[in-house]
């Protein structure tokens, strides 16, 4: 016992020294495992996409990249942690449209769209409006007609979520009024559709693909038709120019060293162009949408400003 104490102390000292040594050599980034925070539970869309990216990124950077789930408050908890992480580049995160763009306006969260260094966009899933597979509604136009004559009830992932905002804009353009039935998960919205509690909900192609027997897409809120469902018209085609998508972006805290950010951006580009990443994303029904962080940042800020205006108009910002 007595004799082992000095050994332990020496060991601890050595460990500390090794730790410092790693930090001093910033050029050799990365020289220890990197963790990627996912602000949602395991098994969801962002989680699976992030794991796919983490595998490819490990290859590209030559260091282990592992996913850490920090769910809570609709993604705000994990996203706040990304913003507050050390700027050494060993704690990154994949955050999504709602927590990044909208949460800062509707809730009291300790970050804004400016709190991050943007590495790269990981995926961009256009949003489809999905109804029960045997529904008579078959197009955005039909949805507007339905909303005009009956009570349109739509699901979303919460007040002030991307889905909610998009439906507010659609209702506005179509001159109709819908009833918003908020829910916290895709599964709950799906159940409500099947039980005829709501007419439909905005969701991603991967959710529809998984539930092809029970759901059908009737319109997509992108500029062009999606290659995944080429027969489904865009909302814009039928006179409702609403453009929204669900995307995920790899970020780190604001103020990472320039060379670290450069390494990460290059690594992410390599990772996303890899065969393994592409084919996996395809299997998942997700659209790989690589975009460099430098290019994406102004877009994110622009979307954030537009969203803020819309939220204000809808009276969702107190």
């Amino acid at each position, binding site marked *: 016992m007595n004799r082992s104490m000095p050994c332990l102390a020496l060991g601890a000292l050595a460990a500390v020294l090794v730790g410092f040594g790693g930090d001093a050599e910033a050029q050799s980034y990365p020289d220890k495992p990197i963790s990627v925070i996912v602000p949602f539970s395991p098994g969801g869309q962002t989680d699976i996409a992030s794991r796919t990216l983490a595998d490819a990124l490990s290859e590209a950077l030559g260091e282990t990249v592992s996913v850490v789930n920090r769910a809570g408050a609709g993604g705000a908890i994990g996203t706040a942690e990304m913003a507050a992480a050390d700027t050494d580049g060993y704690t990154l995160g994949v955050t999504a449209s709602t927590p990044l763009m909208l949460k800062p306006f509707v*809730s009291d969260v300790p970050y804004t769209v400016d709190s991050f260094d943007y590495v790269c966009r990981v995926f961009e899933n256009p949003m489809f409006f999905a109804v029960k597979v045997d529904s008579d509604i078959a197009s955005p136009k039909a949805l507007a007609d339905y909303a005009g004559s009956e009570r349109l009830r739509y699901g979303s992932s919460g007040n002030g979520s991307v889905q909610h905002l998009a439906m507010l804009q659609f209702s506005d353009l179509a001159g109709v009024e819908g009833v918003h039935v908020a829910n916290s998960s895709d599964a709950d919205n799906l159940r409500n559709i099947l039980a005829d509690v709501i007419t439909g909900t905005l969701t991603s192609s991967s959710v529809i693909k998984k539930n092809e*027997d029970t759901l059908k897409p009737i319109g997509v809120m992108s500029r062009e038709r999606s290659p995944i469902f080429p027969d489904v018209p865009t909302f814009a085609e039928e006179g409702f120019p609403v453009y929204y998508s669900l995307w995920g972006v790899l970020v780190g805290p604001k103020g990472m060293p320039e060379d670290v950010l450069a390494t990460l951006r290059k690594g992410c580009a390599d990772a996303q162009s890899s065969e393994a990443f592409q084919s996996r994303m395809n299997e998942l029904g997700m659209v790989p949408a690589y975009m460099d962080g430098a290019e994406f940042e102004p877009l994110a800020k622009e979307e954030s400003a537009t969203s803020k205006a819309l939220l204000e108009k809808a009276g969702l910002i107190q």
Partner: protein
Amino acid sequence: MLNDALAAVTLLVDPTTLVALLAGVVVGTIIGVLPGLGPSIAIALALPFTLNMSLGPSVALLMGLYCTSIYGGSVAAILLNVPGTPASAATCFDGYPMARRGDGDLAIGITTIGSAMGGMFSIVILAFLAPFLARFALRFGPLEMFLVGVFALCCVAIIERAILVKAVAAGLVGMALASIGQDPASGDMRLTFGYFPLAAGIPLVPLLMGLFAISEVMMRVAEYGRGPAEGTLARIGFRVPGLHFWRSAWRTVAKSSLIGIVLGILPGAGPTAASFISYSEAKRSSKDPDSFGKGNPEGILASEAANNAVTGGALVPSLSLGIPGDPITAMILAALVLQGVTPGPRLYTEHMDQVLLILFSLFIANIGILVAGGFGARLFTRVLRLPEPLLLAGVVVLASVGTFAGNNSAFDLVIMAAAGFLGWGLRVLGFPLAPLIIGYVLAPMVEVNFKQALIVYGTDPVVFLERPVAAALLVMILGVLLYPTIARAVGGMRRRIASR
């Protein structure tokens, strides 16, 4: 059908699949037994592995983990008064008193058999009735689910009749704790007092560990040295009651399994509601209700058969509609989808081999419970003979590790400690803890469905006439609340007739 069964068996007898199943059973039992670790962690850890496995092994691994980790949670409930999941909280009522009086081996035996029987029963039902049951589940909209939640909450009134006011108070504290954080319907933050980490709400595992494990340690430390006499040496091993016990107990098993299956199918109600409702029904229909809560083996049986029957039930909406009922089945479903299983009505018509593979795996995993229980019991029950300081220190360490591991959050440890003091205070003042947990677990479901029901159906009571299921549930709730009064009135009348 026969071809599909053959295909499923072929996949199953593959050596890798069997190894995966075995690994699932062993690891699941261990994870379940350790306080603080439970099915959600077991499945979350397995998910990344399944990405690189083929269909057979990944299904086997997930099913093995799923039902054994739920079972394992009950072992900790019995031996340490620490439910591994909220679903085992009702097992503490009778399991822990049995362990304290030296009958831990018998309690483990009953839990093991009860769990396996509940699980197998639900699989048989699932195999034949799933698509029909799934359609039935769709008749439960927000209004019905709200009423199911209220019904489960009302069962507290039967379980804790002796201390009704305190039990209701504890339930309300649980509901209040659950409302901290994000409003489940709107996504707004509330009751965080401007302190951001609270935006995630009070997470389940830290609350459960603090409330049960830490407060149990505090209680035992406080009474250390003047606790129960040394005479009650805990028996080691695995003991199953004789045939005479099962002659009356089979009724409880059958009833509890049915309750578990029904609640498993319904979205969001889950094993916690199932075990509480089933426990209260067993107590209500017992000839000797006062023995419940003091170590009645039938109480364990009721809770265990029900919470394990949920595993089969919960897979019904997941597989036949693609709607997982809780976060755990959601993760399982995600893993299955990545394996190329497409849930939905067509799964049963076109891919019966996949359905059968899942069912067979689950069935074998339930047999695995018997084996794991039989072999593990000697080890588990030995825990009771550990010197108390060692045991208590071990509980604190394991509870802390489990709490931290769930969300990698140090704040969760603070919550655990605070919940420990809360639990200790409540116990000292004679408040029961189980109602707090059931209030906490059911509050979000009750709230979301209540709000949605108001949005969708408005405030016109006519909706109860249009929705017969809702009306029936309403009658059941009134029945539960009025049952003691009615029973007393009927008893009084009988006595009067008899005396005449």
